[in-house]
């Protein structure tokens, strides 16, 4: 990928306006884009790439494809897509924690509910539910995480392949 979007983060009003404009532009260029990823279709990977100012590469691995986003500053995000181009897992590793609200989309509220009791300490998250598994770990300079939808793993794909 050679296109790059440089935009301010989405925390302030001018930033939001700029982000919205950027997103609308991306949406116009990419049919079917939506602002969520885990559980969504392939076009949302592009929304993530834009949001995180990342570079993207794609590898095919049997029953699924891996869209890897290289963020500024060495953190990598990997999104796992099944044969119908739906994201069934995301994983990340590196010195920066990626924006999980962006990556987890509709599942973010469940991450938040699980992580709130861990406030005031630096405990990792090990969330294991029937339809959603999230693990976060590591320490400053080297964080890890995986989030996946166990009921939507493609046939023959095991959770161990998500890394």
């Amino acid at each position, binding site marked *: 990928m*050679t296109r*790059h979007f*440089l935009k*301010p*983060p*989405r*925390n*302030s009003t*001018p*930033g939001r306006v*700029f982000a919205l404009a950027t997103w609308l532009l991306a949406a116009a260029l990419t049919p079917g884009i939506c602002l969520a990823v885990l559980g969504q279709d392939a076009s949302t990977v592009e929304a993530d790439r834009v949001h*995180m100012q990342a*570079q993207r590469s794609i590898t095919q691995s049997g029953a699924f494809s891996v869209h890897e986003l290289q*963020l*500024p*500053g*060495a*953190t990598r995000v990997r999104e796992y897509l099944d044969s119908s181009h739906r994201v069934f897992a995301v*994983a990340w*590793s590196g*010195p*920066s*924690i990626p*924006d*999980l*609200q*962006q990556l*987890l989309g509709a599942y*973010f509220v469940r991450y*938040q509910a*699980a*992580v*709130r*009791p*861990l*406030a*005031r*300490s*630096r*405990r*990792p*998250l*090990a969330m294991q539910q029937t339809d959603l*598994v999230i*693990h*976060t*770990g*590591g*320490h*400053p*300079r*080297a*964080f*890890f995480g*995986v989030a996946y939808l166990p009921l939507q793993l493609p046939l023959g794909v095991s*959770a*161990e*392949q*998500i*890394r």
Partner: protein
Amino acid sequence: MTPTLRPLYLALLAIAVAVVSSCGGSGSSAVVVSTPPPTFTCTAPTGTNAVTLAVDAGPTDPTTGMLLSNVVNQSYVTINVYVPGTVAGTGHCQTIDHVWVDTGSSGLRLFRSAFTDTLPQSQQGGVALASCSQFVNSYTWGAVRSADVRIAGELASSVPIQVIGDSSIPATAPSSCTAGTNAMNTAAAMGANGLLGIGLFSQDCGLLCQGAPTPGFYYTCPGGTCAPVSLATTAQLQNVVGLFTTDNNGVLIQLPALALPDVGQATAVGALIFGVNTQTNNALGSALVFGVSANGYIDTTTTYGDMSEPQSYIDSGSNGLFFNDPAITNCPSGNGFFCPASTTALSATMAGSTGAPTFTYNFNIANESTLNATFTAFDDLGGPNGTCDNNNTMNLCIFDWGLPFFYNRSVFTVLENTTVGGNTGPFFAASTP
């Protein structure tokens, strides 16, 4: 990096380097010193390289005297913070108690509300420099200011620190900093009046942030809109130990054995000792040395049962032993601790830097929900971490040797770019079982 982007990054880097170097010297135009208010007193320095390290119930509200939060296994020291250059005088100084000691990060983070003096502000591009610190499920956000920091008899001058709750930057951190995790931007949320990161590295970020704007570290917010900026290592949050004039190659933490193992204690009192092999009280001796790589993980694996766990580390800022064992019941409250039916005896093996010798460390894991709620020191707290299964050793095979490991042991954390007893830092070392 693609060729199309390189000129832009180089330009940003050049600007950053120019701005940073203009901030470097004392009295340069980029450093804004406000007139400090009248004199403040500090507790006198003890003149040694050791300070009391206490595991207790944490800070209290200065107004009500009530405990701010409900903490366990957090170890604290008291530090003195001065307006730079005032240590020798009557002192624009403030004593800050209950600063949490963290060998898992680098950099001093304090709350604006904790001191009255205004400290010189770091700027870039004519606006305040902001600092973000990400932890596994939380973050802090503050301005970068500089202070002289004295702990026991040790002094570090003009240390860039993070000041949380500083009105010179936007109150809300950008999404690339928060990442959707918990805010730790109050003393109550942190369970401490500050965080003293005295880990393996000299800065919080290092060369990565000097080379390129990196999300989750440094920002400027012109017009209220924050974007990552690159920053020279010397202007980043510093590990104060590396800036001490003596005893500056690392730290030794000694906490006593708990009188009644597995029951816990109301408090535990030990020592944070600066320097390794620099005085009679910080000799490395026969401690086993664990070399670490650039990401802060021990080079050799921790072996737990049949699990080989290459992502292992020793961290005073983790309040339990965190590792993967699906056979141990997690607490139903979802608080991140284990709640086995009864206290469970376990062990894990660590190997020295060359793969030998190996030592097996025995530990117990108690049911967190049955522990005495008024106690704060426990050697048997643990919780789940990762999804290690040996097929996926790339990512989530983690053994986090948190504060329970430190009781009844000498634990050394030695800085990068140092050599101690023939061992090259960074490394951890621990007395054998």
